[in-house]
């Protein structure tokens, strides 16, 4: 179970902290919004915030989702993250220290290298998830990026990642799926079907052998 007793307070009760991380343009904020809407539908107090300086310009983007009986600060304290959804492997590593011991890390292991790496100023880590796997984190990873492209568009990675995390949330996966599909109500049946497929594909990724788990 991922919910936690807030260390600071008896009166804030149980707060679940989810960190969604990736790169500007990947749909991080939308994914966080869908998670929030699901929690909101269940009657929780919810707060969501971003650290997204120049989000559309390829920079680091993180979105914090917190829900529970009562949520004060919108930002998750470093080390207090129950669950991380990472849209890129090196970004997963970047936020490692924000996870609490035993946290779930759901990672798309399709790498995206920035221009500073392309021009040779910095090195991209050799195997970013190896280090993450060595910590006390429940790591799940799969190539959601490739799956999205196979399904028709790399932007579907968003729905795939939401599907992947669905069975790890402290509420039924259907609630998350419904929150996701609500976004397509006005956009037509075809998109709804496509994103449901993506969501299902994400969930199924953990019923097959194409993922690894390190406790």
């Amino acid at each position, binding site marked *: 179970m991922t919910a936690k007793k807030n260390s*600071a*307070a008896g*009166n*804030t009760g149980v707060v679940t902290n989810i960190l969604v991380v990736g790169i*500007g343009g990947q*749909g991080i904020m*939308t994914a966080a*919004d869908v998670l*929030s*809407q699901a929690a*909101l539908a269940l*009657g929780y*107090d*919810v*707060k*969501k*915030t*971003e650290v997204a*300086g*120049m989000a*559309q*310009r*390829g*920079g*680091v983007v993180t979105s914090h989702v917190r829900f529970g009986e009562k*949520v*004060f*600060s*919108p*930002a998750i*304290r*470093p080390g207090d993250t129950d669950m991380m959804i990472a849209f890129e492997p*090196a*970004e997963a590593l*970047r936020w490692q*220290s*924000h996870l609490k011991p035993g946290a779930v890390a759901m990672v798309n292991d399709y790498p995206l*290298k*920035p*221009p*500073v*790496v*392309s*021009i*040779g*100023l*910095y090195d991209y*880590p050799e195997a970013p998830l190896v280090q993450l796997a060595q910590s006390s984190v429940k790591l799940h990873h799969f190539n959601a990026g490739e799956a999205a*492209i196979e399904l*028709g*568009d*790399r*932007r579907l990675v*968003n729905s795939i990642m939401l599907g992947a995390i669905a069975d790890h949330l402290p509420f039924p996966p259907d609630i998350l799926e419904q929150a*996701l599909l609500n*976004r*397509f109500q006005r*956009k037509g049946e075809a998109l709804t079907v*496509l*994103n449901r497929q993506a969501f299902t594909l994400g969930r199924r990724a953990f019923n097959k052998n194409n993922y690894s788990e390190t406790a």
Partner: protein
Amino acid sequence: MNAPQPIEKTARKFMSGNEAVAQAARDAGCSVASAYPGTPSTEILEFIAAYPDIYTEWSINEKVSLEVAIGASLAGSRALCAMKHVGVNVASDALMTQTLIGAVGGLVLVVADDVGLSSSQNEQDSRYWGRFAHIPVLEPSDAQEAYEMTRLAFSLSEQFDVPVMVRLTTRICHVKGVVVNSPVEAYERKNFTKDPARYVMVPGNARKRIPLMMARDQKLSQASEAHPLNRIESGSEDCVGFVTSGAAYFHVKEAYPDAPVFKLGFSHPAPIEKIREFAATVAKLVVVEEVEPLLETELRAAGITLYGKDVLPRIGELAPQVLTPCIDKLLGKPCQDTLIETTGLFPRPPTLCVACPHLGIYYCLSHIKNTIIAGDIGCYTLGAGHPWNALDTTISMGASLSVAQGIDKGRSEADQNKNVLAVIGDSTFMHMGMQGLLDITYNQGNVTVLLLDNRAVGMTGGQNAPSSGLNIHGEPTMQVDFRKLCEALGVKPERIHEVNPYELPTLFKALREEVKIKEPSVIITNQPCVLTERYSKLPPLKVDEDRCTGCSNCLDVGCPAILVQRRETVIKPNGREKQLAFVNIDTAVCTGCNLCTNTCAPDAIIPAFNIDKINAVEVI
């Protein structure tokens, strides 16, 4: 905090602070709203623009924007003007006089401070404007309060005949939370009444308004002392008590939920006597305010003993992980340093978009030697980064031209042969750059101006401006003709070039020609921002691996779609080592702009045929 009221599930909306401000403006019967886009305030006007009953506009700059709202207020409407913190500096000339005139229809100035500098050239505490301009300041802590306080701001403005500032910070603007709305108010617009003694601020009239302003300050102080927005939340601990406001309130509640808190909502004028009473009930009083020790100084001057910036950081957000070690230390508790160590991982700085029309400009600028380049606010600031490293200064909105003029006039003998350039975007040019160009032409500066017209306010997400030919709703309107405008500002017609920034040879030719000529010149680019609908994608490109020689010239363009596949070191005939980088192109994001093909001598970059289903579907 008051006991949470039971609420209907259907009444719960999930809103950002910016969205809540917009909803509040609508529900309060506001009929005119204006802004210039700026992070983190931009979305306020975007949300208000969705309400058909409110006149909305993207103004040219924040001073113009505030003046539009002032006019609307004087005409009897409720008006709202939104801006980011640095915008108030621009608007301040109008603000400092409006404070004497007052307001007829409620006049609300929403200011969003970028605490922690996610995308600004400085960190600035807008609460100072409250004291400076003698206007009340309301400080919401979350979206619900942003909604309530924006509504209150309209009525306070009318009640006290004063513009009211609602001060937000990034953690209010961009935090979504649960918001419950109150009933919509049918505000009846008043008529314009001639009153030159009040509205015409010549010295004689203004002099008479100053005592009225002072009397108003007194009334505002009394109102603040008694206002329920300034409240005490008792706690079970008494070793420390906090005075706080805005986003910092929730940081305090998160870190010390059992401590008593004095929460300020109506923060200027400060309720000093009420705080004095609170101070007597706690062993140690700590003022937690983000950025400047504004309240701290005021309370100290009133003789209240407290802790503030002597134990807390002066810069950035006061998040729980920042507060806890500082306060624990003050209380003599053993404290853990919860700040995170760096991972040693590569940075991922923001960069220009794939196919951005500015890529070609910065590619050229990085290949022209002997230059001093003054930059500006907006996407062009990114030209200071890798691989271009093409900017020498960035000061403030529109400053590139005037700074370049100063560099030209102030340069030493040794720098006389250097080329002085200014880089500015279309929206920025209209915001504050035009005056700089007039100064250059009038005083005959030897400056080459690059006017990068991408027909949008690119950095904030591609909003419309007079260069787009579209208004805030995307409806057609006039489109500014920059060639004619520059001519009108005194640039000779033959010194104005209009170029396609994707055609590198033409661009180089125009640049080389103009830097040689010792008079004012302007090079205007004419391709749209890739974030806008005006940009049309072409089929993507790929790299023919057999032809790629690893020269890495294409990497100098800085397009994020070009990726290195492998590196090799070879020894040249002269014995020197040469680094080779063999590349490919991410066809999923490439828009076929052909800029990189211009830089590829072996013609290794070719159309990528048989790419299936690119952008065939719309997804979230």
